[in-house]
């Protein structure tokens, strides 16, 4: 790259009048191989993630599909599915699109091929480690952040490599102004970094086990600030950046309104970050934080729909092409799905709607409209657009691509409609009272059996969608084999002149200032996203002493702690909540509603987000030990027709006491008030409690050794939600209760 040396100061003035600078056109090469590699990974992991999704779907309809082994049980399969489709499928899709578009928008090759390779292989290794560790039960249980601490560190490092490569490329650009797509990439990089680090704060107990630095309400707030914004900044902003690049490319016309795209960007990143608490409505989270989340969720409609309209109107005058071009068809449905999901999201944030929808399959339908429609279809569109260009050929078959489009679209409908139906049905059944004022459906199982047919239909929808993806795989392989990969694509662009020599920038409008300064843009974007996070979290952390403490709530006994870790390992929180909301329909069904002060020793919190089975917060002391024993061995023995899988291995596996003293020490370090030296007594205390449970079981002719995992799990389940029953006196830390 040749840049003329800066002339001496005295010579600057005449030069500005008539720039007579020696300028050459640079020749350079775009790296297409890395784009192709990320593309292959996208297709591969996409199909893998969807396959796991189909398995999970049928497990809910047919418990036999859990295959009676620990590694294939729903509680471990569901996080595998979500991680695979979010971080492996969409993640690789992001990198594929960013590596293609960033080079071209910057008119520069990627900063470093080595960093590109480290990024690619590092990311695949992280996915592989998730693929191994999640089925083995190594999980933090925090949704979309299940991976344990060593993998969290690896994610951080690889993410830094991605950022380094991206900013390096931006620094070497030959286009002075940064296109709006790049703004979205920058915001994605920064925000995901902040989210990942803050939410992954955990203290290791052993190589693959840690405890969250936050407890109870605070952990819930941080988790859903993360969870919500993972959707915002991993599934939305990068894909919006890609939409702003690939949609104009495919439609061969510029974006409808660049002004609107500027508003879209700044208002979206500013508002999105505040909306997290809408995942915790009616929970023990302070009310002000819930209201803030609702208000910002409603506001979010404006920028989201601004973006959707901008995308769809880009096709003005090109709708005839939509009829014939599968790429545009996919894009139209993707952008429409984005619009539907971003309208539905704010509606679900309204407390009255949320009261019915939350914890039901309505939410599952909602996220899948986004995942299958917006992310899936935009990814397919990019792949169909990129593959012929990377391989210098035509798409093998438009017919197959069209077939994929229709299979996918019908698949989405078959998926979403039954889930909406299931969500409405179950949400209303939970709340239905009869004329005597009693619950119409007091048996939770009745509300589950009602929707099992919907679970079958959802599974069929998944199969349709997946078969479309297989058609794409075949089509892309045939396309690739009919051409040759243009691994390095020659390109030309004039070298950038120093800004001081370009007349335009002497008198340009102030707003252009930020469009050509990535560092400042990054700082402003970070400030915009930090404001919302800080406003919600700082008070919640300052109020630590104000979460109403309940004197009778005590730390878990060691055996209960072991049981709790098994509950986490088996992924019980994927189907069971621990949050009785303050509705009569819930207090009638489960008991006293959940209070913030009950969770102060919960690291991590286990409130859950979906009630495929009933809430468990008040399950303690509700049934005898033998009920749990029989139920875990064969759920249908206690609840005929139950779709819960059996957990026979809990009866064979020994409780692992080796890390118990360390667990106690870690929790003491985090503030759990175990007495000094308790770590050395913990194992004995656990064995003592286990012996008591075994004696109780023996009375009912159930023979079990006290060192089996089932005993620890029973100890935990029997403890759940019982503390406030011990001593109903509730005290409040200063200031006094209202």
């Amino acid at each position, binding site marked *: 790259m040749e840049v003329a040396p800066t002339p001496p100061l005295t010579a600057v003035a005449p030069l500005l009048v008539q720039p007579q600078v020696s300028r050459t056109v640079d020749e350079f090469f775009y790296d297409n191989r890395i784009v192709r590699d990320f593309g292959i990974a996208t297709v591969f992991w996409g199909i893998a993630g969807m396959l796991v999704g189909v398995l999970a779907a049928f497990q809910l309809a047919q418990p036999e599909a859990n295959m009676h082994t620990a590694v294939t049980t729903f509680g471990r399969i569901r996080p595998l599915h979500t991680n695979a489709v979010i971080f492996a499928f969409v993640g690789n899709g992001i990198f594929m699109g960013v590596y293609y578009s960033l080079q071209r*928008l910057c008119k520069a090759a990627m900063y470093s091929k080595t960093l590109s390779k480290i990024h690619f292989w590092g990311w695949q290794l992280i996915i592989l480690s998730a693929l191994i560790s999640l089925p083995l039960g190594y999980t933090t249980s925090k949704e979309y952040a299940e991976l344990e601490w060593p993998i969290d560190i690896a994610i951080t490092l690889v993410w830094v490599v991605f950022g380094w490569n991206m900013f390096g490329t931006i620094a070497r650009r030959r286009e002075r102004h940064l296109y709006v797509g790049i703004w979205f990439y920058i915001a994605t990089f920064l925000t995901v970094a902040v989210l990942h680090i803050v939410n992954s704060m955990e203290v290791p107990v052993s190589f693959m086990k840690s405890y969250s630095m936050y407890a109870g309400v605070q952990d819930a707030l941080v988790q859903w600030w993360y969870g919500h914004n993972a959707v915002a900044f991993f599934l939305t902003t990068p894909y919006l950046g890609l939409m702003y690049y690939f949609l104009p490319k495919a439609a061969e016309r510029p974006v409808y309104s660049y*002004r609107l795209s500027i508003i879209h960007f700044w208002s979206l990143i500013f508002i999105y970050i505040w909306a997290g608490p809408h995942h915790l409505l009616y929970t023990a989270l*302070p009310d002000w934080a819930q209201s803030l989340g609702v208000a910002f969720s409603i506001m979010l409609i404006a920028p989201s729909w601004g973006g959707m309209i901008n995308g769809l109107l880009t096709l003005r005058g090109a709708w005839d092409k939509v009829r014939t071009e599968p790429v545009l068809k996919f894009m139209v449905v993707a952008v429409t799905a984005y619009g539907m999901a971003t309208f539905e999201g704010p509606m679900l944030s309204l407390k009255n709607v949320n009261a019915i929808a939350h914890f039901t399959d309505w939410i599952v339908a909602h996220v899948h409209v986004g995942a299958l429609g917006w992310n899936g279809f935009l990814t397919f569109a990019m792949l169909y657009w990129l593959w012929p260009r990377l391989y210098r050929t035509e798409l093998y078959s438009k017919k197959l691509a069209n077939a994929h489009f229709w299979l996918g679209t019908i698949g989405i409908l078959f998926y979403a409609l039954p889930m909406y139906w299931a969500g409405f049905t179950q949400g209303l059944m939970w709340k239905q009272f009869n004329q005597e004022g009693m619950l119409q459906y007091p048996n939770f199982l009745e509300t589950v059996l009602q929707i099992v047919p919907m679970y079958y239909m959802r599974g069929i929808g998944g199969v349709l969608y997946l078969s479309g993806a297989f058609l794409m795989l075949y089509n892309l392989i045939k396309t690739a084999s009919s051409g040759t990969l243009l691994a390095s694509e020659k*390109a030309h662009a*004039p070298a950038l002149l120093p800004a001081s020599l370009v007349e335009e920038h002497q008198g340009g*409008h102030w707003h252009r200032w930020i469009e050509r300064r990535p560092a400042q843009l990054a700082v402003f974007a970070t400030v915009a996203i930090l404001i919302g996070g800080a406003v919600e979290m700082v008070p919640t952390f300052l*109020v630590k002493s104000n979460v109403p403490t309940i004197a009778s709530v005590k730390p878990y006994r060691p055996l209960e702690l072991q049981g709790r870790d098994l509950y986490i390992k088996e992924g019980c929180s994927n189907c069971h909540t621990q949050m009785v909301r303050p509705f009569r329909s819930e207090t009638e069904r489960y008991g006293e509603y959940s209070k913030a002060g009950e969770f102060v020793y919960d690291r991590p919190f286990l409130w859950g987000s979906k009630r495929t089975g009933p809430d468990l917060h008040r399950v303690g002391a509700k049934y005898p030990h033998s009920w749990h024993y029989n139920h875990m061995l064969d759920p249908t023995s206690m609840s005929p027709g139950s779709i819960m899988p059996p957990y026979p291995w809990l009866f064979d596996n020994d409780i692992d006491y080796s890390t118990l003293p360390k667990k106690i020490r870690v929790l003491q370090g985090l503030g759990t008030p175990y007495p000094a030296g308790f770590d050395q007594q913990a194992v004995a205390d656990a064995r003592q409690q286990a012996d008591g449970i075994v004696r109780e079981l023996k009375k009912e002719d159930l023979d079990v050794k006290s060192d089996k995992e089932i005993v620890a799990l029973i100890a935990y389940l029997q403890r759940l939600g019982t503390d406030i029953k011990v001593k109903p006196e509730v005290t409040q830390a200063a200031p006094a209760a209202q």
Partner: protein
Amino acid sequence: MDKNVLQSIAGVEIYPIISFVIFFLFFLGLLLYVVRARRPHLDAMSQLPLRDGLTPDEETLTYHF
């Protein structure tokens, strides 16, 4: 409860004012930004994804001028 929560923070009265000022300034700035943006500049920006090769003007840049 929210009242207790907020009262425990020193100088909490200023929070709503700060929040309003941040919001007002943010969206005012954004509005000014887009209203004052000039059409030719916006057009040039929106053309960025579509400009893959050299423009006719840039073709001449291979030569000294």
